[in-house]
């Protein structure tokens, strides 16, 4: 399969015109500080520069990218900087929703598998505990009574709640679905945002402003 059809998921590409009368050497010199970071290695061969990053700090302005190639080429209206950057973070964020959908399915499957055994356990143990608790009084400190705190629930009511809680405790896939949604949104935001941010960063560096 030709990866070019799908590699936009984790690759960010673009071109930027150089400043008037700026040479390739000058352009790379201006971009150089961006690559003088911990864990970054770079190599210049002619009009191209390749770089790779290993465990960049959060403060590295290009930390979202793991490597890439920058070339200075002759465009229609003059020299341009062409960049092609790879981001594992973007790929990870793209795949994360699928992972959470899988978690949701696992949660549902476990819930189905566990149901019979949970009911069996309830009949034996829970009933015994319920009987034990029937005559218990829950004390409330006079200070709390005076200050008007709600009276504590009687254990009898607790039993009811417990049954409800037992039902609620059944594994729910909701959280996994919510996070699948969150990571989908984050991917869309990141794909657009990081594209713009890197363009702005390169432009600022090239123009020296």
């Amino acid at each position, binding site marked *: 399969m030709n990866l070019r059809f799908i590699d936009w998921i984790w690759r960010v590409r673009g071109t930027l015109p150089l400043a008037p009368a700026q040479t390739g050497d000058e352009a790379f010199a201006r971009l150089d500080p961006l690559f003088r970071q911990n864990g970054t290695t770079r190599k210049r061969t002619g009009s191209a520069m390749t770089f790779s990053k290993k*465990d960049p700090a959060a403060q590295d302005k290009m930390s979202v990218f793991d490597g890439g190639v920058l070339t200075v080429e002759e465009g229609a209206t003059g020299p341009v900087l062409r960049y092609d950057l790879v981001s594992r*973070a973007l790929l990870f964020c793209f795949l*994360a929703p699928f992972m959470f959908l899988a978690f949701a399915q696992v949660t549902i499957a476990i819930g189905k598998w566990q149901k019979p055994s949970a009911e069996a356990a309830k009949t034996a143990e829970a009933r015994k505990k319920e009987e034990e608790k029937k005559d218990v009084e829950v004390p409330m400190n006079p200070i*709390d009574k005076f*200050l008007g705190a*709600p009276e504590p629930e009687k254990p009898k009511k607790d039993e009811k709640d417990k049954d409800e*809680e037992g039902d609620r405790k059944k594994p729910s896939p909701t*959280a996994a679905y919510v996070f699948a949604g969150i990571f989908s949104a984050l991917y869309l935001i990141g794909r657009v945002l990081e594209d713009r941010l890197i363009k702005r960063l390169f432009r600022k560096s090239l123009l020296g402003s």
Partner: protein
Amino acid sequence: MDGIRVGKRVIGTQGPVTIGWENIPRVQGGPVKQFIFTWFQPTMLFALILFWYYAPNSIATASTAIGIHIGFHALLLGLEWVNPRFDSWRLTWKELVTDLFYVSLGYTVLRMVDNYIGSDVMVGAIQHLFHWENFKWFIGLPLLVQAFLISFIFDFGQYWMHRGMHNWYPLWLPHSVHHYITQLNINKGAVGNPVELFLIGLGIGGFFDFLPRAFLLAGAISGAIGVYQHINVRFNSPRWWRFLFNTTEHHSLHHSQDYEATRSNYAGAYIFIDRIFGTCVDGEAEHLGLEGGRRMSIREQMTYPFTEGWKMIKAKFARPAAAVPAE
């Protein structure tokens, strides 16, 4: 770097730190901003206490607690945007994605594992221990005293567990991953190896199924104090607050690149526990992390304790070099 003498220790020889409250910058801006960022923390604490004290039984539930937790974190994310402590700690897209990945593990996989391995066992044990009849004297105490005692006992345990993690290599391995973060943000508390997160979740998750009001109050108090450990917001915390409670300042020092500074401020909520045991250092740090600020990838964070543990075991049981025969 010369470092600064704090008690018997010299702090800041390996990484830049600021020691002493008088040297820590204050909130910049007009009187309204100053007021908000001075009184925000105590106001939220007291508001949460009042809520959990007076909320009707139908509202005082674990699901309400989770709702408030999420809403409060969203609000704090907003504050990070408005009034960051350090620009170098600004939340980036990549940091947010990474942090949320760990938060999501807590809500999905770890919760599931806790439910099946941790909580049920814990609940059984604790329910047995906390049998109404045995603990009538405790339940008869004023609610706030119960809540404080629960949160204090829990934090006291966390203090020693955390201190143990920094002093015993097998415990350090799962915890070390959390120390590779290079900035503090509101969700950074969730970043760490699942083994450590599971161990912490075991303690908290176990209580969540049969919560009397005192436990909800205790959780709210610990949460409303401990949440500021990992946050990129500059506060003028009142003097009494920072004397009693853990703050971003304390915890940033704990995460600094200076080894000696990391061996301080272990408590989760009550920094006075550190003061009692002589491990409290008042100050802050901007440059965080291990190995000069190498930010670990998620993949390495997942495997590091096991690979390093394997290396340790191999080194320990390696065949010693052939002995030199006696002459």
